[in-house]
């Protein structure tokens, strides 16, 4: 199957005066196929959000390419956007919804983008599991989980072929997280759209994603089918991430610790980016960067 979104060797740099250039995304490649859910995970500061913003055209691309349906993604400007096939659900629904407009009107913006006159905002509210009459209310009348559902309804209104969720569940209550994540998955798959789901919560990603991509310091270090990555993580970083999740099994096992912090992306270590923290570090890791896939690690070099 052809891919819907192709990210090829993407580099995104943040420049600010008087400071060194920060390479937030340093050569990442990823594809999303129609109807597929890809989970992107990694620690904070690894560049996941920058990657998502670049895919939407919210951050300018320094090098590499992002193709959506065979067309390059251009930076978002003030003009009318043709590329409405990509829609994003942001992290904090308290900030992403306009507090002074009725939620029905905000959803109608999405419908207008897609030139959809048959659907009403109430229909979309129904699809995300909210009562139809909520369309006349304002965002402050809703809880966090409900607001995020409204944000999802607004994104879906534009009939996206690719939905991007940038940590859409991390601002929600634990009891609402799994529900909202599953809702996003169901709605995206139902409409045949791809979903790029970014989260640092691996247990949720495991639940909804078909494939997992693990990102570390601007690079994708491992990609694979969710079940496979979960059962047999190959990159030492993926292993460390999975081992650090505390299990609610009541046994009192302390999770494994990964020593050290994510290095400053302005001055990444030489060789493999994970080498200063890697428990299995070899000599070659300090000199040469493993730039192959699906597992970017010298222990798993393709023959």
């Amino acid at each position, binding site marked *: 199957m052809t891919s819907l979104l192709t990210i090829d060797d993407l580099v995104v740099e943040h420049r600010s005066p008087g400071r060194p250039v920060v390479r937030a995304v340093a050569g990442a490649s990823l594809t999303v196929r129609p109807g597929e859910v890809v989970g992107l995970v990694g620690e*904070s500061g690894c560049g996941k959000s920058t990657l998502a913003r670049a895919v939407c055209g919210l951050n300018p691309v320094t090098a590499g390419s992002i193709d959506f349906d065979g067309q390059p993604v251009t930076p978002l400007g003030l003009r009318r956007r043709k590329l409405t096939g990509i829609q994003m659900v942001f992290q904090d629904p308290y900030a992403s919804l306009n507090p002074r407009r009725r939620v029905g009107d905000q959803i109608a913006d999405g419908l207008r983008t897609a030139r959809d006159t048959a659907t009403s905002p109430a229909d979309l509210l129904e699809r995300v599991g909210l009562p139809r009459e909520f369309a006349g209310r304002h965002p402050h009348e809703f809880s966090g989980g409900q607001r995020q559902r409204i944000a999802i309804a607004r994104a879906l209104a534009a009939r996206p072929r690719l939905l991007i969720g940038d940590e859409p569940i991390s601002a929600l209550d*634990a009891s609402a997280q799994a529900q909202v994540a599953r809702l996003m998955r169901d709605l995206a798959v139902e409409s045949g759209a791809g979903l790029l789901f970014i989260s640092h919560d691996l*247990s949720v990603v495991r*639940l909804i994603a078909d494939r997992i991509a693990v990102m570390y310091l601007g690079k994708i270090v491992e990609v694979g089918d969710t079940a496979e990555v979960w059962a047999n993580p190959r990159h030492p970083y993926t292993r460390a991430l999975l081992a650090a999740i505390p*299990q*609610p099994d009541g046994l009192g*096992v*302390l999770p*494994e610790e990964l020593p050290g912090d994510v290095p400053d992306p302005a001055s990444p270590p030489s060789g493999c980016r994970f080498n200063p923290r890697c428990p299995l570090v070899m000599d070659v890791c300090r000199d040469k960067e493993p730039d192959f896939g699906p597992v970017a690690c010298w222990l798993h070099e393709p023959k």
Partner: protein
Amino acid sequence: MTLDITGLRVSIGGKEILRGVDLRLQAGRVHGLAGESGSGKTMTGLATLGLLPHGARTTGSIRLGERELLTLPPKELNQVRGGRIAMVFQDPATSLHPMLTIGTQLTEHMRHHLRLGKAEAKARAVELLGKVRIPGPEEAYGRFPHQFSGGMRQRIAIAIALACSPEVLIADEPTTALDVTVQAGVLRLLRGLCDELGLAVLLVTHDLGVMSAVADEVSVMKDGLVVESGPRGRVLREPEHPYTRALLDSLPDAELR
């Protein structure tokens, strides 16, 4: 030293937030407090320190050893607060003062509560920074919070809480703002300190995985009431209350188990 909370009721503006909470913290044990947001977990922690918002009405009893904290005059409460009961908050980016060096923040209350001199306080602060495993404690002493990562900041916040050798530590969602890998380190640190110093820890968290990793006893709160309380293994493996069961079932990997 034990901290006993019995029949704690808190109402703010006529609305009852806590409706009779009973908890018992023991030295060297971690007591986990779980529940959804709005269930009153944080309020219980704040009530223990007398940090409730203005106009809050409190009844019931909170006893630290033989002392009743709820009726303590403000002056005496100030000696307990920070001195014998300390708190670690959720977000180290906002709980540390951005314009004071961590050295200042580590020594200020030590000099007040323990009446230490400047040099003594500094020596103890450096020792504490070493204890919470901040690399290069001597240099770190003079730095500002923004020069540390999130995990380091939370370790510093823990060091500040421990500075006056408290008997009770209240940790309100101490790892919620952190990544899993960093969280693992902070949890190990908390557990180690609890065992080593014989602290009584109240760990407020909504994450049942975190709860399972470090807590000895678990209490589950709902709508201002403790609905279930017991040893970790029993509450998480054989929950008696339907609400605890519902919480466990709502976890992402519940259906995969």
